């Protein structure tokens, strides 16, 4: 088995649906029989565990514990696929951040060793025999997100179709190119329903000279359901679910070629 494909999911600003997209893509791949890990590095505002129905009060160890040297990284990994209804060979592991406010405050104040994060990611891939490792990053650019970007095989940049995101995405994209990330995909989320999605896709691809993996329309129904679970598992036939599926298939194809 080859090395796992590292996929960082990043956005310049918060609120782009980053955690949601990460959870959905990871779930789609697990459903295809892949072994998938998801690391929540958004320590300041963790949230992805909610989508997988993981109650942090019941978890003994988290990513923060690992960063402080209190446990091994694998001890902070929880299999959440089975409870989400994923059957077969696929596995879905979540390495949650911490939900305890005191821990969050402390680690944000003192910082942490990004190298230890990097080491942790690698151990995780080996020990859990992962095909994919998703990194749900903190919005914006800091040393930890730069590291996530630097180690990624694929960087998925999420943006909404507005001027602020266009500008910020341009910055992140240039930085990622300097770091020679092999594959950089853009994903436009929350496009107004009135938009001509294919025209928007073409325009964004042209502006950034980058591949646009998907353009997802703004959907009230999805927003309501998405806060309660993984949308593409709840509504597999929904057009948005199909879009995630397609992106996941393309990721899987690349992984098998690698």
């Amino acid at each position, binding site marked *: 088995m*080859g*090395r796992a494909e*590292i996929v960082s999911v990043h956005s*310049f*600003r*918060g609120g782009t649906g980053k955690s949601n997209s990460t959870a959905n893509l990871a779930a789609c791949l697990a459903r295809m029989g892949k072994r998938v890990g998801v690391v929540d590095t958004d*320590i*300041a505002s963790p949230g992805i565990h909610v989508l997988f129905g993981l109650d942090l009060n019941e978890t003994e160890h988290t990513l923060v514990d690992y960063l402080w040297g209190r446990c091994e990284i694998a001890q902070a990994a929880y299999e959440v696929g089975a409870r989400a209804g994923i059957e077969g060979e696929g596995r879905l592991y979540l390495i949650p951040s911490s939900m305890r406010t005191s821990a969050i405050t402390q680690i*944000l*104040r*003192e*910082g*942490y*060793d*990004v*190298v230890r994060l*990097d*080491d942790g*990611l*690698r*151990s995780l*891939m*080996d020990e859990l025999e992962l095909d994919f490792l998703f990194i749900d990053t*903190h*919005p*914006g*650019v*800091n*040393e*930890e*997100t*730069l*590291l996530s970007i*630097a*180690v*990624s*095989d694929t960087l998925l940049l999420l943006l909404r*179709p507005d*001027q*602020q995101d*266009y*500008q*910020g995405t*341009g*910055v992140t994209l*240039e*930085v990622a190119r*300097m*770091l*020679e*990330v092999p594959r950089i995909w853009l994903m436009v989320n929350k*496009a*107004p329903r*009135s*938009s001509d999605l294919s*025209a*928007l896709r073409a*325009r*964004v691809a042209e*502006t950034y000279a980058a591949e646009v993996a998907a353009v997802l329309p703004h959907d009230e129904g999805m927003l309501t359901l998405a806060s309660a679970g993984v949308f593409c598992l709840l509504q597999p036939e929904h057009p948005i679910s199909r879009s995630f599926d397609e992106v996941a298939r393309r990721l899987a194809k690349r992984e098998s070629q690698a």
Partner: protein
Amino acid sequence: MIRSAPEQLAREIEVRVRALATALRKSGGREQSAADLAKVAAAASRLGEMWQARAGGASEALDEEAARKARHDLRTPVSHMMGYLELAEETLQEIQSPGVEVKAWLVEIGRLRARVDELRVALEAGMRAWAHERPSSPPASRPPGRRGRGGARVLAVDDDGENRNLLRRHLERQGHEIETAEGGELALRLARETPPDLVLLDVMMPGLDGYETLRRLKSDERLARVPVIMLSGLDHAETIVRCLEAGADDHIPKPFEPAILSARVESALERKRLGDREREHLAQLLAAKRRADAFIDYVVPMGARLAAQTDTPTLLREIVEVARRFTGADGGTLYLRREDASLQAVVQVVESRGLDRSSGDPIEDLAPSPSAQLAARSGRSQRIDDTGDASVDAPRSIFALPLRGVDDELRGVLELTDARAGEGADAATPVAFDPARETALEALGRLAAVALARNAHEQSLRRRIADLEVQIDEGARAREVAVITDNDYFRELRAKATRLRARGRSQPGQPSPSAGAKTKDEVDDGPR
């Protein structure tokens, strides 16, 4: 031999009329009436003979021409009987303070007239049996009792007191209201005070003569259409011609025959009624033309103006203002239809209360009125002429107009309140909305709905274009990239990035860049 009904009736009438004539002659001084009655009897006798002659050949079918002539021949004596009975009656009616005897004669004449009418009906029924008979023609004689429609105002002008009196009595018997004048000056004054329906005008009068009075009547705009009948002796032929040329409607020779007077008066009044009705129709046509003009002069240009308006708040406000101006409404509220089919107020203007909320933003505290909701549900205009609600802010009259475009889809409802007359001292008093403008208003509503639909479409296109517009400030991007990349950490990360990615495959545990580097999350959330 059994006599048929018309023959029996004719015989009976003949006998009774002769008896009455005899009675009149005996009482003395009633020669004229007695002579008239003798003519009635003669006509009855003639009719009886004619009917008997016809009945003999009744089995033969007549051709159409022959039947027409036979009917005419039979009807003529009936007309004579009725006419002479009327004359006799009128003569007797003119008797001042009639005694019991005279009243008894009048009663008998009344009965005889009824019998003549029965005879006419029987005759028509008998004639219908003939070949080629057509539906019976209208009665050859006038029905008994007062003749004509009556109820007209007639001004009779004659310098002779006796003539004025006769005219008055005759016309009053016909049910008209009579005013008399002994000369042209007074006649003109009376006519100008209250325009009559008809003027009877003597030609020869001292002072202002008939011709001059006629000329002045016809040159007065208010009186020009009042018909005038000239009264004159037959030797005034030249004058009569002049009068007719000057606009007189008819002429009655003096001394006048009551029947001729009645006929000509009724005929002139009937012509006037027809003329009046024609003018009424003309007025209706003019009203229809005004409605058409409202379309051409107002609805069409305003519709075009709405169609050209691209700014949404301005469009919403203009829809209200255009309709308010058109109806003179004090208030106007525009509701737009939400996706869930409920109504959302977006503009409210009430001039008398100085209220003007027309930013185009939803007016959340304004719930749709019952009329507006009804208009939305039914898709039809709701007009309330008087709500009967006297409280201060409550409208008295309401017009709620559903705004539906060419696709009939409801876009919203425009509610107008308190139409005002817009003239004089009562300008501010609410009145009902003009029903004559309803069609034009509905057309305006349709154009407004089309403008709203077009505006919504345009806004959606604009949004799409804005979505597609990706603008990047290159200078700002370069500065931000520099902040991130122009430091040792990044340089080191960049140098080792490729190796870092490769390391995972073969050599876990190799040193990472900038070992021990700590990061704080303070700079890096990026612009929000």
